[in-house]
């Protein structure tokens, strides 16, 4: 049962009816839990044990952490008078270390499962390659491993919770069923967003009443998500799949076709992922739950840093809270910065800047390496992460130089042409990163970049593009949809304080009626669904 199936809509409708007619408001979350369980089991019942393990282990360790913390504080209070300052400091340190070990246990257990299932074969293959090059007679076996549905998303969400409990940002959940709901809430299990506990949990457990406006806005968001996924993403993916079907086939395409494919991928990925998130958010909104928005017109970003604040916002926020910040203020990073400041170079203007931003720059590099690996177990994803990380690191380190050039050239930073140039430049950088997403392997990615510059042939490109499974009319339709997306994005960008749905609410009924009607009919007529087409999974489902 995928989010774009008719069965899913019926499932949501039935769940909503039961949820809102249940007379005991404080037990309405149970309906969501049962629905989430049914949804998960229908999609992947064989692997339900993994999500149950993560939920149970995280909840129990959370309780343990909290009790250690409370007992420690109690003990500290009890010995307030009889312990001297040193003893108190030692006790606090011991307590911190103990808490860290408990948290680490949870992280190792759960990230261990994720790492094993997702990366074991990658590491085994890499190890075999290395040992083979040294002619060592050893071969790590490769295993037939399957990824449980949503494992990356629910693991990250649960581990965020355990860190928050460790940091005493949230109280540990005592009800295993409520915690299971937080981990498995069905609208977000397939591809996020990765919510944090303080933002989502209270909304899940609160018994919401039916609100027509929420229901309407939820339905609008679902409809828009269907449009993006079925009309745009699943149409574009036909051509992309034709190019990437086999590594041998991929090799045969010229630079023009590969350039076109990467451009098409930028459209498909955005429409697919943001469409899926819109459906998730729309469904949650019907139940009165606001999930965070995962996108904020990312292709309008003027820097790659900004792009990552606008693209997959929940993953970026998770990485920032739980990886970047701890790394940037960690002892080794701060020490390195301090050491550099003490050198002769560190005393120059440029050196001072570099010393200052060094922890941030290195933390960014590591975070993006992790983001890359999070996308998949392959060198091409490592390259994807490194590309983004290196660009961000360099832009951070060289910021004063860029600022100087702009000042020297007397460029007005608010000039629309300059803004457009920045957006275009950032988009190109993003596209280069996408090359590694699309290409079957890292080597193919490098080859693609080479062909961008050496193998542009418009006529051959047109001939090849005509064989990718889409008709001329399909391309025209994709063009119209791109323009529609662009116009809507510009409107959203100009009115970022409100949503399109709130803006629509103020328009006359007839106009709204016509717009909704066009959108529904567009999905029915132009959507890619039914037996004539192979239904495409959401791209981020695999991550």
């Amino acid at each position, binding site marked *: 049962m995928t989010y774009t199936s008719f069965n899913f809509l019926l499932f949501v409708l039935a769940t909503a009816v039961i949820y809102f007619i249940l007379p005991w408001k404080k037990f309405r979350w149970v309906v969501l839990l049962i629905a989430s369980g049914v949804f998960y089991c229908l999609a992947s019942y064989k692997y339900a044990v993994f999500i149950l393990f993560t939920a149970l282990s995280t909840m129990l360790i959370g309780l343990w952490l909290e009790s250690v913390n409370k007992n420690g504080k109690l003990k500290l209070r009890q010995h307030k008078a009889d312990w001297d300052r040193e003893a108190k400091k030692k006790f606090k340190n011991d307590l911190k270390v103990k808490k860290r070990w408990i948290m680490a246990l949870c992280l190792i257990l759960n990230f261990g499962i994720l790492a094993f299932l997702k990366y074991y074969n990658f590491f085994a293959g890499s190890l075999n390659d290395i040992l083979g090059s040294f002619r060592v007679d050893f071969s790590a076996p490769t295993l037939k491993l399957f990824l449980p549905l949503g494992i990356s998303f629910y693991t990250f969400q649960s581990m965020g919770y355990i860190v928050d409990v460790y940091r005493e940002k949230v109280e540990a959940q005592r009800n295993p069923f409520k915690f299971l709901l937080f981990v498995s809430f069905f609208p977000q299990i397939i591809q996020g967003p990765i919510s944090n506990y303080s933002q989502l949990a209270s909304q899940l457990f609160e018994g919401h009443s039916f609100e027509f406006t929420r229901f309407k806005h939820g339905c609008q968001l679902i409809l828009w998500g269907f449009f993006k996924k079925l009309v745009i993403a699943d149409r574009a993916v036909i051509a992309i799949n034709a190019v990437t079907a086999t590594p041998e086939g991929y090799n045969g395409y010229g630079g023009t076709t590969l350039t076109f494919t990467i451009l098409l991928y930028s459209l498909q990925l955005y429409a697919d992922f943001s469409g899926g998130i819109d459906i998730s958010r729309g469904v949650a909104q019907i139940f009165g739950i606001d999930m965070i928005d995962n996108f904020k017109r990312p292709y309008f970003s003027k820097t790659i840093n900004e792009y990552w604040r606008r693209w997959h916002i929940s993953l970026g926020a998770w990485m920032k809270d739980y990886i970047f910040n701890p790394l940037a203020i960690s002892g080794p990073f701060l020490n390195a910065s301090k050491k550099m400041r003490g050198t002769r170079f560190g005393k120059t203007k440029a050196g001072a800047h570099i010393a200052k931003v060094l922890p941030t720059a290195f933390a960014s590099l590591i975070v993006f390496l992790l983001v890359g690996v999070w996308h998949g177990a392959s060198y091409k994803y490592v390259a994807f992460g490194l590309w983004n990380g290196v660009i961000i690191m360099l832009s951070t380190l060289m910021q004063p130089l860029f600022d100087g050039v702009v000042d020297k050239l007397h460029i007005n930073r608010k000039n629309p042409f300059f803004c457009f140039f920045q957006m275009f430049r950032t988009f190109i950088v993003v596209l280069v990163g996408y090359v590694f997403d699309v290409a079957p392997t890292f080597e193919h990615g490098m080859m693609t970049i080479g062909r961008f510059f050496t193998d542009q042939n418009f006529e051959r490109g047109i001939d090849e593009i005509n064989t990718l499974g889409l008709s001329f009319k*399909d391309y025209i339709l994709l063009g119209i949809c791109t323009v529609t997306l662009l116009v809507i994005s510009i409107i959203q960008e100009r009115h970022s304080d409100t949503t399109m749905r709130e803006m629509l609410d103020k328009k006359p009924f007839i106009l709204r009626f016509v717009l*909704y*009607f066009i959108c529904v*009919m567009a999905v*029915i007529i*132009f959507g890619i*669904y*039914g*037996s*004539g087409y192979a239904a495409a999974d959401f791209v981020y489902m695999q991550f």
Partner: protein
Amino acid sequence: MKKKLYITRAIKIICFALAVVISTYLLQAYVLKRNDNNTLRMDGFFVEDKESLDVVYIGASDVYAGYSAGLAYDEYGLTSYPFATQASPPQVVLPQIKDVIKHQNPKMIVVEINSFMYKDNDLPAEASHRMFVDNIPRDDIWADYIKENFPEEDQIEYWLPIIKYHGSWSDYPWKLKFLLTDLALRQRGYSSFRGFKTVANEFHPGGKLYNDTLAETDDKLPLGYTSERCLRETLDYLKENNIKNVIFTRFPHIVNNKAYSRFKRCNTAQQIIEESGFDFINLERYGKQIGIDVNKDFYNWDHLNIYGAEKLTRYFCDKLTKEYGVTPNELTESQKAEWAESVKTYKMIYYYSAEMIKRRSDLGKNDNSGTTVSEDDTSVKTIEKYARKTHPELFADEATEAAKAE
């Protein structure tokens, strides 16, 4: 106040839902559907006046290419119709018979047995089922057919064909030629082609042919399992329901090595049919009597061209009227006018096809391609334009009517 708000909202939602449902239904019924010459032929059958046909032919493309209802009416006064679809599978025959009885109850049903010639490994694909099932009324015959022949998980696409055909938007505007003709046909209430379709070509087959020796050959090969099951079910149904006005036949083909094994299976089918007490006329054996010339009367290996169709129609109508005593129905004036229109159309098709065949022949083209003539908007305009120029006598009644009006 709140009550008023709720009512307003409910009305708005209902209006929106209705607009979507009605639009989807209209799209599904007329635009985003299978629209081809099979659709026109099937729709043409169902708009015929009830019980107005003397003879209905059932089968596949051999039937609608090899038999002209317009000519049959012109020369024998018989009203007939080829209720046939392209590559019709064996499962289709029984529901076709049921539909014919339900909507027409003619004096004679002629079943061309091409549908039973398929082996189990070459049964027609889903598209061939669709050509029939998408174009018949949604009644119990239709529902039974869906239930019996398709997996449960796929049946939703038959109940809601827009799931299958929504992507056909990209066939427009090319497909308009079928849509416009179909709308006109439904509005007019009859098909002027009466299901006929041909390709203007004179095919010259090469290699070893068996046509001259078929009259003496009784060799047999077993039928495919599905084909035999469907044939026996059809015969059982006819016997159980005491339906006797059915004859089975096999239309002529060019018989090469490959087609010869089909001919042998046809002999097996003949035995099964005759054992059940029904007549079987194997026209492949009567090539000489019909006057079929394999080098002139086919447009490809399996289909008679306009000349072959002319010969076969006359031969079969002779047989029906003389041997089986089928006599024409009494028609109303409007029915007569409609059939006169079909005669005129047939003549236009004939003249145009003959000219096209001549032109191709002059150019030395004798492969199995050629100009398709069917009841679509483009073909109709083309043949009419040609006929107006070369055979103005066909339009004499128009001139008379115009003069009267003046």
